[in-house]
């Protein structure tokens, strides 16, 4: 939109709802989400029971002594979920671990969320995150700088790296009409290949070693601890606020949402679709790059080819669960961080595979997205909660 846009477009013109109305409008969503989690846990419980050898052996004489089998099943399920809860919120360390896992998920998830709001399906958080991690790590372990500045420069480098990787997608999409799904999928692989290649170079390896593993970043380029968690957590929260402001209070955000809601109408109104695509992919990459920086600057983790793990894909699920809003994305990331953190404890304590948490994550998102199913399962009546704008098609 040209600079002379009328002021009423600057922010959404809806009047602010009162606190009560706000709570009422949120209630169904909260209830559906909680019920979805319960339903997912119930299905997870079933999986735990039927796949546990001990329980199964007791079910072999189920008809002779049904109590024994049921009791064993309940005990196993309770043990597993207790370990899951304990590992995610049971202690200060557990909560810190949950939050620290949630931080990069928040940032990368916000990137996916932003792209969704413009109608782009950004599967490329993985590649953008890798690009960011590479840049942040390189600055972190090679450059020599004063403490605070070093961290800032390293994180900025990560954000720029991610922004470039994401911006390429926006540019190609705007210029050539190539589909962003293809571009982002392919660029994920390209980023991973480049990372693997870099790790074979001496510049990226621990001196005197031949392992595909970088040195850890200097201690002065690490996020300092603050109230028990590394300060990257606060950066993640701050970025959620910034994204919220951008989407709902700024002109640029208004234009982005307009493009996402109806590109043809937006074009007619004089909004440049190409500009929106490029800008949103730059920002999405920037946020994913920030997530990458948190991966290498958060702890003493070296750069390896597994640095991104499945973060980039989890970010998509987080964004979907967050229903396209920054606050939802933060909450979804915390839930996923908790499942991830607790899942490790669960695996260590009870031997239940970590994949159980992946299943739970999938089920929760699925049920939240299908409120009719959840309402049917629990026989509750609610009016339909409004659906957020997401990428609805191939565009």
């Amino acid at each position, binding site marked *: 939109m040209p600079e002379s846009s009328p002021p009423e477009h600057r922010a959404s013109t809806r009047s602010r709802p009162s606190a009560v109305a706000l709570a009422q409008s949120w209630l169904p969503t909260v209830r559906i989400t909680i019920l979805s989690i319960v339903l997912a846990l119930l299905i997870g419980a079933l*999986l735990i029971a039927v*796949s*546990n*050898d001990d329980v199964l052996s007791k079910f072999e004489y189920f008809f002779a002594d049904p109590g024994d089998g049921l009791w064993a099943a309940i005990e196993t399920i309770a043990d597993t979920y207790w370990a899951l809860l304990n590992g995610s919120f049971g202690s200060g360390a557990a909560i810190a671990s949950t939050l620290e896992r949630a931080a990069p998920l928040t940032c990368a998830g916000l990137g996916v969320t932003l792209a969704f709001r413009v109608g782009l*399906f950004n*599967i490329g958080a993985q590649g953008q995150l890798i690009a960011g991690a590479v840049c942040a790590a390189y600055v972190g372990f090679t450059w020599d700088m004063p403490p605070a500045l070093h961290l800032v420069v390293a994180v900025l480098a990560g954000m720029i790296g991610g922004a470039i990787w994401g911006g390429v997608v926006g540019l*190609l999409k705007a*210029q*050539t*009409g*190539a*589909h962003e*799904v*293809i*571009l982002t*999928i*392919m*660029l994920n*692989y*390209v980023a*991973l*290949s*480049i990372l*693997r*290649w870099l790790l*074979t170079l001496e510049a990226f390896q621990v001196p005197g070693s031949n392992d595909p593993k970088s040195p850890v970043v200097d201690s002065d380029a690490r996020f300092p601890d603050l109230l028990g968690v590394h300060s990257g957590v606060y950066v993640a929260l701050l970025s959620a606020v910034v994204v919220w402001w951008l989407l709902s209070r700024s002109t640029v955000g208004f234009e982005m949402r307009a493009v996402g809601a109806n590109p043809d109408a937006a074009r007619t109104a004089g909004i440049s679709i190409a500009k929106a695509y490029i800008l949103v992919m730059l920002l999405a990459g920037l946020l994913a790059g920030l997530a990458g920086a948190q991966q290498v600057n958060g702890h003493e983790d070296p750069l390896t080819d597994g640095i991104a793990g499945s973060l980039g*894909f989890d970010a*998509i*699920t987080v964004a*979907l669960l967050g229903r396209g809003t920054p606050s939802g994305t933060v909450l979804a990331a915390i839930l996923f961080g908790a499942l991830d953190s607790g899942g490790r404890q669960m695996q260590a304590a009870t031997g239940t*595979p970590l*994949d*159980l*948490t*992946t*299943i*739970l*994550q*999938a*089920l929760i*998102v*699925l049920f939240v*997205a*299908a409120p*009719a*199913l959840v309402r049917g399962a629990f026989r509750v009546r609610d009016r339909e909660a409004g*659906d957020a704008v*997401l*990428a*609805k*098609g*191939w565009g």
Partner: protein
Amino acid sequence: MGTATVIESAEAPVAVVSPAERRRYIRVVSILGVAALLQLWMLVETADGDFTFRAQAASAEQDAIDLTLGGPMLATICLVITAVVLALVAAAPALRRRIGAVAAVQRGPLFVGLAILAGLAFIVGFCVWVYSGQARTEPLPMTNPLAGTLEFATPLALGAIAGAMCERAGVINIAIEGQFLVGAFFASVIGTIAWSPYLGLVGGMGAGVALGALLALFTIRYMVNHIVVGVVLVVFATGTTGFLLDQIPDDKNSDLNSPPILETWEVPGLSDVPVIGEAVFAQNLLVYLMYAAVPVAWFLLFRTRWGLRVRAVGEHPRAADTVGIRVRARRWQAVLAGGVFAGLGGAYYTVGSTGAFDKDASNGTGFIALAALIMGRWHPVGAFFAALFFGFVSQMQFQLQILQKIPTELLGMTPYLATIVAVAGLIGGRAKPPAADGQPYEKD
């Protein structure tokens, strides 16, 4: 790029060149230009010596067939081909008014043909450079990539066809990767229990259909955003197969997860055809099923009443409903039919190639199949060719790895880069999905 502008003249009607058209022209010409420059550089770097292409490896019945040509000579030929294509495409707008036929070079089949020609010339020139200057007394010949190409392409084509079935009916299928994973897992488990890879295939199909049923249930019955369901089903399939695999104790692995592998069948007569026979007609059942799947899917979608209705539902469900087509039923059928193909594609990763299921056995190829579907413009035949293209480049990078001229890690990204160049550079234009793709349908 002054040539792109149309010269105003009084007598001839002025052709209007849109900015998009001009950008495309600049893009195509610069890509071809870069390709020609790279080839020139490779030609300079190509060491003297022969380049041997082993079109057919020696076997019990047949001798090896080698094609040998001087390396620099071949590289020069390739460079000339690329240069001629570049010149033709670059000069097309200027010549368009004088010689009408030249305009065809810019678009349509002729352009595609030229682009493929230039691409092949580039690849051959590249191979000549990579294979030249080997520090061996007997330089390695380049082996025929056809068999490997087909093997890479088989699951991709099957997955992309599955996607075409769903999306032609208006259901976006991002869950192809998930269908691959469950297909691979259950093909392995059922193949092991029944001790038959063919029953394994049936198991894989069943699993693909089952995941398809979940996709249909949530997108059609519960009208959940299709992309949400697709992504979630991939996560769900990854988690479930990983979880179940971990729950198989080590000592039970041989009872549950070590299936027999499909054996190779030689088509009598055809497999003896020199050069291509061995590669195309001495494969396992799954590859033959893939050959069959392409025309079958095309016939189903474009030559039957069922297919016409499916496509109508994907383009304009309201209109289809008005004339009495049952929209939801057709969508269910199409998604389940797609599941058969995707499940087979998944089975390739266990009973079709390596045997036992490993975590993430399909390694993201379901997403490549999705890309092939879009590249092939939601058409089974187009998707097949896109899958072949990807398979070919994957096989090439795989073969070139042993020469170690380029770091393996960098070579690994060529299939993905090639896809980006093809999609963003040469094909361009907006691929148009079915009009109602991803739209839920609710009766008023």
